[in-house]
């Protein structure tokens, strides 16, 4: 499976490079076609399951599928209720979207990386990364969308004047000498949220993927010698153990992303 690579570094870089399509003059104007296609598929599958159930949802006795979907909905709804006491008509479905989408992204991490590489390579798609959350563009796209929603809800809750007033007067005070420090601190605080949010998910998934790759490299040195057999067994066992651990990680990261997004947007409604 992992044959065909001339060196370990080629193996790693092959698995860590996105399939890029350049638009216009390149540079920033490049899109990672694998991330986009995978996230669309995962979005359609993940939210599609919810949509199918929502279309035929009955208030009578629910079937198994509806029970499961409702369990998820109530879980997300209660989580959002805990951080935001107000109207959840927008925030709760937003949180559900984040949870489902990020979970589906991360779930792809459990697909054996070499299988994905072999299958996509067989149809001519080299450098196909199946896990969108290992692409910083994907995680930042979500975290900055949340950031803009935060700004939007701040404007909505406090008005443009109130928001700008807070930028200059909180947290130190309204004295004119403190305006500049206040502003600087607020900008740092505002930007730290989406950057940490996107980085956390990306870092966890990227590092997890990297560990899978290192274990895959270890499996590549397996042979019929004693040391080679030990390496092969160890690689298989560790990959299995890491995958089990990752079942926890992928749900946890999706949950953290959801809760923090809800918290940030809930904070936008608060007055200082």
């Amino acid at each position, binding site marked *: 499976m992992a044959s065909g690579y001339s060196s370990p570094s080629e193996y790693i870089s092959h698995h*860590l490079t*996105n399939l*890029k399509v350049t*638009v216009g003059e390149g*540079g*920033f*104007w*490049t*899109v*990672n076609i694998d*991330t*986009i296609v995978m*996230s*669309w598929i995962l*979005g359609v599958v993940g*939210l599609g399951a*919810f*949509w199918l*159930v*929502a*279309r035929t*949802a*009955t*208030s*009578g006795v*629910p079937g198994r599928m*509806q029970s499961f*979907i*409702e369990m998820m*909905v*109530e879980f997300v*709804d209660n989580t959002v209720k805990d951080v935001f006491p107000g109207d959840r*008509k*927008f925030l*709760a*479905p*937003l949180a*559900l*979207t984040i949870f489902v*989408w990020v979970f589906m992204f991360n779930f792809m991490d459990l697909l054996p990386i070499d299988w994905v590489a072999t299958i996509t390579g067989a149809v001519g798609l080299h450098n196909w990364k199946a896990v*969108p959350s290992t*692409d*910083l*563009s*994907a995680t*930042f*796209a*979500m975290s*900055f*969308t949340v950031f803009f929603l935060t700004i939007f809800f701040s404007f909505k809750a406090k008005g443009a004047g109130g928001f700008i007033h807070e930028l200059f007067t909180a947290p130190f005070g309204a004295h004119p000498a403190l305006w500049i420090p206040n502003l600087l601190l607020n900008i740092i605080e505002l930007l730290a949220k989406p950057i940490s949010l996107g980085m956390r998910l990306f870092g966890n998934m*990227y590092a997890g993927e990297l560990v899978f790759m290192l274990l895959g490299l270890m499996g590549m040195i397996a042979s019929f010698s004693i040391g080679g057999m030990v390496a092969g067994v160890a690689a298989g066992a560790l990959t299995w153990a890491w995958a089990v651990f990752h079942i926890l990680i992928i749900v946890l990261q999706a949950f953290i992303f959801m809760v923090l997004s809800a918290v940030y947007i809930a904070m936008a409604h608060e007055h200082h």
Partner: protein
Amino acid sequence: MNLNATLLVQALSFAFLIWFCVKFIWPPLTNAIEERNRKIADGLAEAEKGKLALAEGEKQKAAMLKDARDAAGEIKSANEKQALKLIDDAKAQAKVEAERIITAAHAQIAQEQQKAREQLREHVAALAVAGAEKILKKEIDAKAHGEMLNQLKAQL
């Protein structure tokens, strides 16, 4: 792994998914859940009401049963009283009848006695006359001594 225009595409996709979820997924599911919660609450309230009504009916049933039992007892005792009265009446009537029969018998007996006595007297008188006739033979004329004979008869 550097940032590129994927960011914009992903952000738009994300916005679309949020819109879709807010519009088409969340409302029907939460409505279904709330509707069911309301149905369950209503059902429980109905059950509670039914339980109360049942207890009330049970109480009514017990009261009606008690009334019926009381009425039956009254009817029974009235019947018994009636029967006793009938028996007493019958007894009294029988007594009266018996007395009447006894009195009538007594009267009849007295009458019979009287009659027998009369007959006896007649016989005795006739015997006396016959005896006297035998003794006196022709000396006594029945016609001539009739007066005396009658007096004798009355003295017997």
